Each structure stands twice: as C-alpha cells, then as structure tokens.
C-alpha cells in the first residue's frame, strides 16, 4: 500500500485495524448462527422429504387403482368439479437479515366434492393421499426455501469473513508494523544526529 509513514497515518491505520477486527468477530458470529440454523432445518427437511416419498408412493398407487377401476376419464372429470385450492398464505420473517417465508397453518381437510355414485374406496384413498401430500408440500416448500436462502447468505458472509481474515487484517497489520518501524528508525536517526552535534560543540 502506498501510504506515507507518518504518525497520523499510523493512528488512522490502527483505527482501521481495530474496526476490521471488530467486523470480523461480528461476521464470524453471524456465520455460526446461520450455520446452526441451517443444520437444524436440513434435518427437518430430510424428515419431511422422507414422508413425502412414502405419501407419494401411496398416492400414485391408489390413483392407479382408481383409474383402473372407474376409468381415467371419470377421475379427470371429478377434478373439474372441485373448487380451486387457494388456501396458502405466507408471511416473510427475518433470520439475521434474511427474509424467509413462513407458511400459515393450512387447512388439511378439503371435503371431497364427489358423490358415492360410480366412485369407490380406491378413489377416496387417492384423494386422501394427495391431500396429505399437499400439506406436506407446503411445509417442505417453507423449509427448503429457507435453507436455500440461508445458504446463499452463508456463502456471502463466508466471503466477507475470509476477505477480512486473510486479506484486510494482515494488510493493516503489516502496514502498522511498517509505519512503526519507520518512525522508530527516524527517531533513532534524530537522536544520533543530536548526539553528534552536541559532541562537536
């Protein structure tokens, strides 16, 4: 760095160093908090993902049975009669300055809007399974989105922590050392010069 080695520059650099170190501690703490948060969420996510897999396996097999027993066209027609599901609503909350969604409790019990005529238990099972899947999906979407957003934030924080730790702080330290030694050197010079003058007189 191209800074003239003066006393005032030394003070300024020392201040900057203290500031950088403070920032480093803060960011490091932020990173740790985020990582702890994300680890918790990843465990949750895996749990939900596993139950989604089993629910879907059941849903597809009962759907297939329903299709076979009452005909795929009829199942499709039933879909038209069902009111559109618009039950989701979510708010954004903030985790260390990252906005993450949080889904409000959704109503799991949609009434089947088909009658007993020409339908059977397979269809009921498929209906139930897809309903369950839907509520799991809402939960999973919340967790996954949070995980992804936090991971982006962790990456950013990580870069900043590294920049401070590996570049800025060493740079400032080297600069302080350079200015200090230079000032000492000039002091010694002056001191010696004084002595010479004194001796000559």
């Amino acid at each position, binding site marked *: 760095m191209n800074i003239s080695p003066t006393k005032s520059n030394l003070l300024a650099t020392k201040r900057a160093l203290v500031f950088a170190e403070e920032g480093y501690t803060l960011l490091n703490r932020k990173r740790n908090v985020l*990582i702890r948060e*994300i*680890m918790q969420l*990843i465990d949750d*996510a*895996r749990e939900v*993902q596993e139950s*989604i*897999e089993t629910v*879907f*396996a059941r*849903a*597809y097999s009962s*759907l*297939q049975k329903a*299709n076979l027993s009452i005909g*795929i066209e009829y*199942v*499709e027609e*039933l*879909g*038209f009669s*069902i*009111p*559109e*599901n*618009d039950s*989701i*609503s*979510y708010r954004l909350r903030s985790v260390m300055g990252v*906005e993450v*969604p949080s889904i409000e409790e959704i109503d799991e019990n*949609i009434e089947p809007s088909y009658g007993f005529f020409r339908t059977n238990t397979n269809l009921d099972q*498929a*209906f139930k399974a*897809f*309903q369950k*899947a*839907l509520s799991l*999906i*809402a939960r*999973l*979407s*919340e967790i*996954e*989105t949070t*995980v*992804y*957003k936090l*991971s*982006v934030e*962790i*990456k950013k924080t*990580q870069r900043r922590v590294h920049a401070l730790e590996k570049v800025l702080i060493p740079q400032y330290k080297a600069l302080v050392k350079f200015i200090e030694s230079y000032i000492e050197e000039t002091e010694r010079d002056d001191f010696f010069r004084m002595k010479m003058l004194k001796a000559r007189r």
Partner: protein
Amino acid sequence: MKYFVIGDEDTILGFGMVGVKGRQVSNESEADAAFKEALSDRENGIIIITERIADMIRPLVEHYIFTIGFPLIVEIPDRLGKMQGKPGIRELVNNAIGIKLQ
C-alpha cells in the same frame, strides 16, 4: 394464494382431485413454457414440479430457487419414485456454500 403443478399425466390428475391446477408437460420446451406461465401469475404461491421435469430446465429452476425465492418451488417424486443419484438438500447446500456440514 394457489398452488400450480407442472408434471406428467398422473401428477396432474392426482392434484386435480384436490383442487390444484397444472400443466402437463413431456419435453423441455413445454416445461420451459409451463414454468414461465406459472411464474407469470402472481397468485401462484407454490409451484410443484416433478424431479424429472425440473431436471429438464435445471438452470432456470435453480436460478429461481437460489436467487429469487418467490414463488416457492417444491420438487416431488413422480410415479416412478424418487430419482436415483439426485443430490439431496444437504449436498446442494454443501456445494453452494463450499463447506462441509456434518
């Protein structure tokens, strides 16, 4: 807000039963169009997409998941079950942040 499903015949049929509209797709350009259609309606709060179809338009999906964050996107297994060799959420995160979480 509503759900929107992008999937094959079975997923559309199944979710149709519980009141979720969707678009059936079978190739990349259809997937792309359906995804954009889903995004264009601000009422769609959650987009449900099968893993196989999400894989066709992976960069687009990833872009929305990681940088935009709205609407929420969920990948689900299709009738053939979970895809083999698909990285789990932990691996995705490890790759994204470049550190190892145990």
